Each structure stands twice: as C-alpha cells, then as structure tokens.
C-alpha cells in the first residue's frame, strides 16, 4: 500500500468542491482543514464527491452523544433513579469515567408506572443503555433502557455468581437457583463479539 | 483606665460630645443602579455601604431553601484600607464571619421573610472606613438598603453601641473609646415596637449597670431611627418629584 498521507491540525486539505468534509476536519472559507494530527482518508460513498476525513490511530475518542449506545456499570440505586458510570461508547472504551442517570421513567417502554428501580437494577450490574440527553446544569447524562435490546447484560447473584437470564424481567443464579428481578436485555449478536 | 481620658471632668468626651450624644449621621439611599437596593451611611468617621439583592431564587445548594420563608444571606466585609492597620483580607476571618451571622440574625427578626417562601435575600455590607460602631453602621445602612429594595419590614432596625465609662453610659462609641478596654454593648432595636432584635456585649459589666446601659442604647437607637426615617422620607420625596415630572 502506498504511504498514506499524514497531516497536522490546521493543514489545508482541499476545497469543498473536491470533497465532503468528514470526521476530524472542519470547514473555513470554502476549504477543508484538518482538525487532528493523523492519516488522511478519502472514501467514495456513492455520492458525487468523496468524503475526506482525518483519523488518528484508532477512532478518535468521542464523548457520549445523544443516541449513542453505551455500556455502563450501576453504582447506586434509589427509588427514583439509578446512577451509573459509563464505561464504553459503542465499542470504544472511555479512558475517564462519566456519570449517568437512568430515571425510573426511562427503564421500560411499557408499563412505565409499574417500574421499580430495585427490581430492575442492582449496583454492580453491567447495563446497555442509550443516551437521551446530555442533561442540564445540575444533572449528568440521562440514559434510557426502554428498548428490548437494552438493559442488564451481566449481573451477579447474591452468591456472587454470574446469573443467567430466564425471562425479560428475571435472572437466575446457577448455583442457588434463586431468581432475581432485572430489566434484562436481549443481547444482540453484534455485541457478543467480546 | 490608663492612658486616655475618655471623659473629661466637665463630662465631655474625646471628640467633645456629651455622653448621650450621637455622632453626625449622613446617609443616602439608592447609590447603585445594578443592585435591587443600596444605601450608604456615615456615622462620624465610620462609613458603610450596603447592597441588597433579591428576593431571588436560592443560589447554591437548593437544600438551603426554606419552604415557609425567605433565606437571609449576609456577608460583612471590610475594605482592606478601612482600618489604620491594613487588613490582609476583606472578609473570611473569624470576626467578619461572626459579624455576618449577627447581621443575619438581626434581619431575620425584622424582614417579613414569610412573604417570600423558598427564596433568598442577599444583604452585603462593606465598611469603607472604620471608626468604631461598625456593627451599628452596617445595620443602619442595611436597613436603608432593604427599604430601598422595597422589601417589607416590620419596622426599621436601628442599631447603636453604648459603653460604660466611669459610671456613665456613653453612646455611639468611636474607635478610641471602643478600644479603651471597657464594656461595649451593641444593640439593634425595632424602635416603634421597642423590640430588641439583637444585643451583644463583650467584657464584664455589673448587673446593676445593665439597665442603665440598655436604656441609654435604646434611647440612642430611637433617635437614630428618627434620622433614618428622615432620610427615607427625603429620598422618597426626591424620587417622587422625579417620577412626577
């Protein structure tokens, strides 16, 4: 493969007439500039013009954004909401922890009024959730699990054993056979790769 | 008492006042435009500024809010150049915190806080020049500022200091008299009802003298009240003339 082109922030890449700006670039006075130090990519995506983007070694670290699917760990619960630490955005691990909140109303899509937090999550659970808002001045990221694919993916029973989901709202401990309530996620195959 | 002769043989004080005589009081309301209420007062050489913000939403943690009345938030500070010896910090030391607390207590007694539940009223006072009676100057300035802000009060709060020199009660002490080592009492009074909002006294005093001292301080507060009343009426007149035009 021919050596790829490298660039540093502020480098003029091309005019908007040649390419469509992609990630890691920005527009100014009709030209596309690099915003990152990295490799320059041009890719044709069926449009008339190729998309130009700048990529560092891996995907540039993104912040949890509205609509992103995040993996998080429950840190504490109370009757109104569960507090979580966001660990992954998509499949990118975050270097620093971000805090999020799952409110009672956002746990399930149906029968919202019957949801009880302590029957949905327990501290230490690993949960798949979606960002619905960046939150306001006081609050953290607001997350939701109100989809079939979202909810608890890994949970440990009181005996300390990883539990097996047995229904959409229950998990069972393989050692004690005790059942515990959870908002269980139907894990999509694409998330099972790891 | 060593050193200075605080009371001459003829019964006059260092600055020539009689024991029950106040210093010259000058005051003005509405000195600033951005604050909701503001006032400036000079009591002799003591000069104080007060501003009032509010009532507004409770700032900081919401848990401070009271469901049935307003929170009074006071901060007392002194300009670094206000004293003969330069101060290192304008506020935050123990004495200022104590003074802030006293002001808060005084105005909680006077302002009709129950009219503004879940809100906050800020009273910030600043001593520009200090020559005794800082507390009273602050209270008087703050009263005018609260009135300027249009916040309802039970009554004016007037404060005055009083001390005991050679068995005579003297009022409105200046710095030299305050530091003479005798007893100093600060008293804040709602003059019309005659209720005492705050009394504070340091050093020791014989119980028999207390009544005399209180009486002297209360009389002084009442006369201060009249002065303040005059200032308010004057201010209102000026404002109404302006608005009438």
């Amino acid at each position, binding site marked *: 493969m021919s050596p790829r082109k490298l660039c540093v922030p502020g480098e003029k890449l091309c005019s908007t007439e040649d390419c469509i700006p992609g990630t890691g670039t920005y527009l100014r006075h009709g030209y596309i500039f690099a915003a990152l130090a990295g490799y320059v990519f041009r890719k044709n995506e069926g449009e008339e013009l190729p998309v130009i983007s700048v990529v560092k070694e891996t995907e540039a670290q993104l912040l949890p954004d509205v609509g992103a699917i995040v993996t998080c760990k429950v*840190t*504490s619960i109370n009757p109104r909401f569960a507090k979580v630490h966001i660990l992954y955005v998509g499949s990118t691990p975050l270097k620093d922890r971000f805090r999020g909140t799952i409110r009672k109303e956002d746990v399930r899509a149906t029968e919202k009024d019957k949801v009880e937090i302590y029957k949905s999550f327990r*501290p*230490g659970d690993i949960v798949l959730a979606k960002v619905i808002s960046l939150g306001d001045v006081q609050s953290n990221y607001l997350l939701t699990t109100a989809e079939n694919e979202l909810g608890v993916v890994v949970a440990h029973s009181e005996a300390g054993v990883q539990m097996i989901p047995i229904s959409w709202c229950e998990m069972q401990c393989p050692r004690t056979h005790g059942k515990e309530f959870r908002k269980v996620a139907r894990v999509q195959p694409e998330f099972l790769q790891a | 008492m060593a050193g200075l002769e605080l009371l001459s043989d003829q019964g006059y004080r260092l600055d020539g006042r009689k024991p029950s005589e106040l210093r010259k009081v000058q005051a003005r309301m509405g000195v600033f435009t951005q604050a909701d209420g503001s006032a400036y007062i000079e009591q002799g050489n003591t000069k104080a500024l007060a501003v009032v913000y509010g009532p507004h939403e409770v700032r900081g943690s919401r848990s401070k809010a009271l469901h049935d009345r307003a929170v009074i938030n006071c901060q007392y500070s002194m300009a670094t150049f206000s004293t003969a010896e330069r101060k290192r910090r304008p506020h935050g030391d123990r004495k200022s915190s104590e003074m802030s607390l006293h002001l808060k207590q005084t105005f909680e007694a006077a302002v009709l806080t129950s009219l503004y539940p879940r809100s906050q009223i800020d009273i910030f006072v600043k001593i520009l020049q200090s020559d005794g009676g800082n507390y009273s100057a602050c209270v008087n300035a703050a009263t005018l500022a609260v009135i300027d802000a249009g916040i309802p009060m039970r009554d004016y709060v007037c404060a005055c200091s009083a001390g005991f020199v050679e068995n005579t009660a003297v009022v409105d002490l200046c710095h030299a008299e305050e530091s003479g080592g005798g007893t100093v009492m600060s008293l804040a009074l709602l003059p019309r009802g005659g209720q005492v909002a705050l009394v504070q006294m340091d050093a020791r005093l014989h119980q028999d003298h207390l009544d005399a001292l209180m009486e002297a301080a209360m009389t002084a507060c009442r006369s201060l009240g009249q002065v303040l009343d005059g200032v308010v009426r004057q201010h209102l007149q000026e404002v109404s003339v302006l608005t009438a035009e």
Partner: protein
Amino acid sequence: MRDGPNTHVGSMMDVAVSPVLALRKFGCEQSLLSRPDGSSSFVQGDTSVLAGVYGPAEVKISKEIYDRATLEVMIQPKVGLSGVRERAQEHCVRQTCEAALLSTLHPRSSLSLILQIIHDDGSLLSCCLNAACMALMDAGLPMSCLFCGVTCAIEQDGHIVTDPTSQQEKESRALMTFAIDSAERRVMMSSTRGSFSVNELQQCVALSQRASEEIFQFYRDSVRRRYSKTL
C-alpha cells in the same frame, strides 16, 4: 484523659519481665467517649493514645467506593498541626486496618478513625495500632482478624529492646515497628528506621510475634472483663 472519666472500665496488667521480652505496663479502656461509635484509649508505659471511630456513615460522593467502605485515618499530634510524618503513619495504620476490616460488608459508606496522641514516650506507632484495633472492636465493625503493634529497638551493642521509651529510641541504632495479625501471627505492617542486618530483622520479627501473644491475650482479657460487666 486517662484519669478523666469515672467509669474506669479498663485494666492494668503486669507482664512478666523476661530478659528479652519486656513490654511496659499497658492499659486500655473502651467506650470512654459517648459521641463516637467506638472509642478506646491505649496506654503503654507513659505513651498514651486515644482513638475514636465513626461509622459506618454516609460518605462524600467524591470518596465513595461502590463495593466497600472508605476508611479515613487521622492522627492528631499532641501539639501543633499534623505534618508529613503523621501522614505517613496514618497511611500505615489505614492500610493495616483496611486489611483487617471486612469493609465489603458496608459498601458506599465511610469509616473514620481518629487517633489523638495524648503523650508520646516511645513506641508511638505501635500504641496507635493497638488503640485503633481496640476502637474498631468497640465500634462493633466486622474484622477478619485482630492486629497489634510492637516496636523493637536495636541498641548500639546489638541488644534488642521491645517497647522502648523515647530515650531508648533516641539511643538506639535501629528501630522497627511491626503489626502482627492474630490469626497466623504474620507481619501485616512494618516500618523501620536505621540500618540493620537480615539476621537482626528476623530476631526482631520473632520477638514481636512472641510479644503479640501477650497483647492479644490482654485484648481478650480486657474485652472479656468489659462484657462480663454488661451482661
């Protein structure tokens, strides 16, 4: 503080004076303060430390650990502010306590241990450890084992002294403090000063392990005495 409250529950106990193993008189009193959840005062000769434990209580969010309790240790010197030396001692005491405490039983809560030095006449760190252990016990916190502190000093001529006074400490060539656990008499903590040979170290460890027997026996006696009264 030692002769303060009238409810003198603690006891004084003489330890048999053997040529090598000589601990000073020690005494202890538990539950002498009413505000903390657990308290103790521990006396070794003239060295005396007062300990108080608060918790489990609510924890500041910034210090919250989601699967166990947060332990804070503060050592207050007799006079003045605590400095770097105290901080290092706090660190040692804290990690020792953390290893003994079953802190996973109180997740997201805080435990604080305050050690007030009443008088320092040598073997201070070991006295702090002993006071801490008694106070934790008094607070009723679950622990996997007990621990005790022993200080040994090696004198200029190579003679080893246990539980030295500050005069002996000053004249010594090396000084070591160990924390010994009650389960298997192993070394939980060690802090040393001065240089010494490997052999000397081993002698000191062995000596401390022997001394720990006596201290644990003393723990047992004083706790037994206390509960025999309340029951």
